[in-house]
């Protein structure tokens, strides 16, 4: 058998359902845990982040307006496509995180299960977090959770797939749209996830994935006036305080979970609850 020349890959960003190059034209080499070259990834800039926010804002009315049942079906579909790409994910997780194949298999399986777990939540959130309120007056008062809007997510730096899935799925399950900055050193599973999202039924712009330097892009998202919430999970320790401070400038919701979060255990509702606003309606009752 003749020696085949391998196809060298230079990946792109995922913004608004398309795969554009970084506006800056930059890319950076991605290596495995031992330093061997794997592929080139696009090095996103602040303008890519801005474009991603615009795409996420555009997608928000459609996604948040879709029925919870419909969102659940779309997320299940994503889980199906994830399952179909299982082998690729195992290879990439093993290379990125430097774990044995067996361990990588278990990580990928947990990630897919995690996605299904959040998919199941979509049509239950309103029942669990909403209520009809007993009030002292002739009113029917009820509260329903509504999505916050555009959420900027700094994905975990270590857990390249399970951590990524655990931070994206709760954002979009409740009807928010997301701009995700991937793990800087381990972006390959996230890039493959963007290919999964593009080929399942998720509308373009609902999830936007940017690879590059977290410390470079995160401040622009934290201060962006059209971003409604910020997940600091993957933020560098030295930047956290600054990011929170600039997020306060436009009163964003900030999720301050630590980077050391253990993603292997089944989560509670806290991440779902973090990106919801409660709307209370007072309805006058007849005489």
């Amino acid at each position, binding site marked *: 058998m003749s020696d085949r020349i391998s196809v060298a890959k230079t990946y792109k960003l995922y913004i608004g359902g398309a795969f554009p190059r970084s506006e800056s034209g930059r890319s950076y080499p991605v290596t495995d845990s031992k330093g061997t070259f794997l592929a080139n990834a696009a090095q996103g800039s602040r303008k890519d982040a801005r474009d991603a926010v615009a795409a996420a804002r555009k997608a928000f009315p459609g996604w948040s307006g879709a029925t919870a049942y419909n969102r659940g079906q779309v997320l299940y579909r994503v889980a199906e496509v994830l399952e179909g790409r299982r082998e690729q994910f195992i290879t990439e997780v093993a290379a990125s995180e430097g774990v044995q194949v067996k361990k990588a298999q278990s990580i990928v399986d947990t990630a897919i299960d995690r996605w299904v777990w959040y998919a199941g939540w979509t049509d239950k959130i309103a029942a669990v977090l909403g209520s009809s309120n007993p009030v002292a007056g002739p009113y029917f008062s009820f509260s329903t959770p509504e999505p916050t809007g555009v959420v900027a997510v700094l994905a975990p730096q270590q857990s390249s797939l399970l951590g990524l899935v655990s931070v994206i799925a709760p954002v979009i399950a409740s009807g928010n749209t997301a701009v995700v900055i991937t793990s800087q050193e381990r972006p390959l599973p996230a890039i493959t996830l963007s290919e999964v999202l593009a080929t399942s039924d998720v509308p373009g712009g609902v999830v936007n994935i940017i690879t590059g330097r977290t410390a470079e892009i995160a401040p622009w998202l934290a201060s962006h*006036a059209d971003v409604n919430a910020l997940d600091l999970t993957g933020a560098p320790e030295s930047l956290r305080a600054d990011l929170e401070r600039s997020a306060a400038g436009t009163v964003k919701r900030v999720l301050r979970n630590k980077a050391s979060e253990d993603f292997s255990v089944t989560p509670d509702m806290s991440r779902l609850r973090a990106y919801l606003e409660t709307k209370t309606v007072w309805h006058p009752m007849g005489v």
Partner: protein
Amino acid sequence: MAAPTTLPSALADAARDESSLRRFLHGLPGVDQVGVEQRAAGLGTRSIKKASKLHAIDLAISMVDLTTLEGADTAGKVRSLAAKAKRPDPDRPDVPKVAAVCVYPDMVRTAADELTGTGINIASVATAFPSGRSTMDIKLADTRFAVEQGATEVDMVIDRGAFLSGRYGQVFEEIVKVKEACGDAHLKVILETGELVTYDNVRRASWLALLAGGDFIKTSTGKVQPAATLPVTHVMLQAVRDWQTQTGELRGVKPAGGIRSTKDAIKYLVAVHEVAGPEWLDPNLFRFGASTLLNDLLMQRRTQLDGHYSGPDYVTVD
């Protein structure tokens, strides 16, 4: 046919009768399609940053013809548009006011009540906008009504059917008559370049409108796709520049429709500077027909000054 002003003999001859007009228009040099598109794309790559960008944004804001031309327009919508025209960004009084508010004739009175004395022009579309399919009498009555109501600028449409069938004399006549009906009001002639198909036609229509006395030539109604494009605007800017070299008069250009982002607007300003000349960087000689563009300009202006990206929650809804 009579030329509206005293023109150099070559141009006066062109406007003498239908056949000399045809000879003149068909004698214009053809447009190099590839060349003009390449040049437009090339100028579009200019990088305008920092202080220049801020200056360009303020200039573009002062050139906006804030437009609402919908069947669903109400007096309330026109009033809110007028308020926005006077003070585009209420938090920042240093933002320049826009050039004009552009409405349908029946809304002119409402706009005029709000804007008279502010220095903002009241533009009205007329002559059976947007199709131009009506009789001459109705078109003229439409124009007179708009001017009586208080319009200081009239945006007329040419009869594209007549132009495309080669009845240049008829189109010329119409523009001359509408110009008369305008009185003191400025006349913008909408060529509807999306329906003229070729750049050669755009060049001919531009010259026709300039010969007949249009103060401005405007690309489109905004109701037809494609609307304003950079190459088409290039061709029109060349026409007003050539007009100036031949007659010494300055005439304006107004691209309208499809210009939504600050980036696009700045590309147009670069084209104005490079193709026509720096004296056209003036709201009296260059306008943007737009509605959503203003919000993007305001957001970009805030981004430049605040050092972080702004969002649609911080500007008024259209």
